[in-house]
């Protein structure tokens, strides 16, 4: 998960692209950001977690209060933020949106003709590692078959198919990235991360606190 920006929008206005989450509360960036509700959207949740990692459990709600004061818009899901609010892809009028590191290559791949440069870019300092996973249910009677499926999903063939179907990065290091990813995707060198067990314990509390701060 990374903030995406509309490259042309910032160039036209000669405005620097925000380089840190803190910048987003700067009045210069008022009314420019669209995020998703972490209670209903997984990139929205990742962005909330990114702010918790960046500002700490004591500081993230203050940051969100400032974001609200700076006119952030919250949508329910990714599609509404990306297609109805974000200016980089059409409908909207906001040049900053919570999306993925893989969105710029998708904008190239699904364009006709394909542009030399992606119309959208990634703000590296905002990236949070979001892991999609496959699991085996506890107590299953068919463990062997389940393990075979997981092995298949980890195979190079399957993993190399993921970037252009699911627009996620492969976990298998032997899998090669398609060209459009090599050229247009940014792989954040040092993304924000949180211990999954902490997320598991605190998720509901954080979402409730966020809801109380931002939506009410």
């Amino acid at each position, binding site marked *: 998960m990374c903030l995406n920006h509309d490259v042309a929008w910032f160039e036209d206005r000669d405005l620097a692209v925000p380089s840190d989450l803190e910048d987003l509360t700067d009045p210069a960036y008022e009314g420019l950001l669209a995020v998703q509700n972490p209670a209903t959207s997984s990139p929205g949740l990742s962005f909330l977690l990114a702010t918790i990692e960046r500002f700490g459990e004591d500081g993230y709600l203050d940051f969100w209060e400032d974001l609200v004061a700076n006119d952030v818009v919250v949508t329910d899901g990714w599609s509404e933020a990306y297609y109805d609010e974000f200016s980089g892809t*059409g409908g909207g*009028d906001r040049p900053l949106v919570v999306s993925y590191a893989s969105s710029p290559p998708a904008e190239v791949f699904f364009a006709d003709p394909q542009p030399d440069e992606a119309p959208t870019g990634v703000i590296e300092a905002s990236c949070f590692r979001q892991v999609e996973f496959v699991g085996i249910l506890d107590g299953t009677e068919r463990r062997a078959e389940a393990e075979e499926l997981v092995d298949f999903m980890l195979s190079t063939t399957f993993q190399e198919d993921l970037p252009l179907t699911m627009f996620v990065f492969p976990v298998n290091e032997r899998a090669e990235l398609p060209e459009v990813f090599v050229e247009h995707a940014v792989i954040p060198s040092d993304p924000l991360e949180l211990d999954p067990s902490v997320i598991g314990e605190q998720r509901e509390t954080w979402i409730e606190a966020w809801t109380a701060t931002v939506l*009410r």
Partner: protein
Amino acid sequence: MLLVVPVVFLGWFFVWPVTSIVGLGLAPDGEVELGVLARALTDQSVRSVAWFTLWQAVVSTVLTLLVAIPGAYALSRQEFPGRRALQAAVTVPFVLPTVVVGSAFLALLGPRSPVNAALVAVLGDAAPTLDLRRTVTAILLAHVFFNYAVVVRTVGGLWSMLDPRLEDAARVLGASRWRTFREVSLPLLSPAIAASAAIVFLFTFTSFGVVLILGGPGRATIEVEIHRATTQLLDLPLASTLALLQLVAVLSALAVYGHLTRRAQQQRLVAAASTRRPPRSRAERWFLGTNLAVIVVLVLSPLAVLVERSFVTATGYGLDNWRRLLVDDPSSVLAVPAGEAVRNSLLFGTSATLVALVVGGLAATAATVGRGWITGAVDRALMVPLGTSAVTVGFGFLIALDRPLDLRGSPLLVPLAQALIATPFVVRTLLPVLRSIDQRLRDAAAVLGASPLRVWREVDLPIIGRALLVAAGFSFAIAVGEFGATVFVARANLPTMPVAIFRLLGRPGVANFGQAMAMSTLLAAITAAALLAIDRLRVGSVGRF
């Protein structure tokens, strides 16, 4: 006997799955936890959600009736060029996925809408910017948009068969138009109005996508909270409590509805075509013009946004989206060629229509023949799925339908889930017409030696033929557009058109958005074509006697 099929259908595919999931939530270990119930019912936020759900549904229903009853008259009693096409077009919103319509509404209600462009053109820079995004007004407008057809079809269907001589007589005796409407037409139409009001109320009470997309994340209906509790928090006790709360509200609404319509009227109906006439006076033309304007602004303009967007390309307008959707290799996003999604939708929609016609037809016949409380109860119970959250039904299917037959992996589940929503429309459309049939006609046929089946075929069928077609068309539209429960039970390799649209919109890339718009336009076009085709069929005709 007639009730066996409806009762089995409802019991197997609604009561059993829903009680299973609600039971699992409330009594995970086999014992009911009353603490959960009490906790949820005293919670301030649950109460405010319940209050919002109720009042927005009431206001939406009243607004829809106010806007659509005149529209029903214009479309069913006035003759004008393009009437059939328009009647099909107003039903289209019904089938479109809310996520697509929501997006079109945002474009029309935002600061860059044509309304604001017009204001700027007239008033210059001093023009106020109208921005209705994320307001209750937007929700209400969208509810009217979606449900306009419910009233137009249900009320218009009956209106087109009321004997115009009654109104003419009132007018000759000196009553004004308004008084004629109030004292002659309105009482005769009341069963259809009550039925459509009940349906619109149930739909808006359980509104989900519209509220999420247009109301912004601060607003929620009970339905939204059930979805959140089930799919995000995995809090089944809370979800079950909310589902129960929703059910209680829905049952109360149906009780009110039953009370309002307990006097089954018998009225003389005539052939639909004979009641329509072109507007003759200036007032009639003005009335028609106003209604057409409402339809254009409210119903057609969001559809126009979709069509326009489906032709937008990187360099202006063109057929790129359509070519990618229909001609190019199967898109990696859809996993199957787009044509297959169309085929699946048609196949599922037709099967669901047949199921709904059989179940609904039998229930309506039973309600006409029998007068017992059981028939009434079944009739009203068939309405309950309309007011039940799709996520509850969908999840219920997945956990309950493994016995006696394991249907969970079966593609049959899709049309069954769709038929659950379509059946009440069949009953509501057929019942007023069936009740209008003079029992003496059937008795006469029976005395002359006709078997019950033959009585039905030669007395009932010719009279209800028209209504049967209306019901079929509506069922088909509902089935094709159903998304909430379908998305739970549709297999990945058998996506319907709404499921495909949802998948396309879930991926970045201009081409995916464009293809989603093209697919939505196609869905709208296919629905309109199907409705027009059904409209042209003839099964007997009313008023033969």
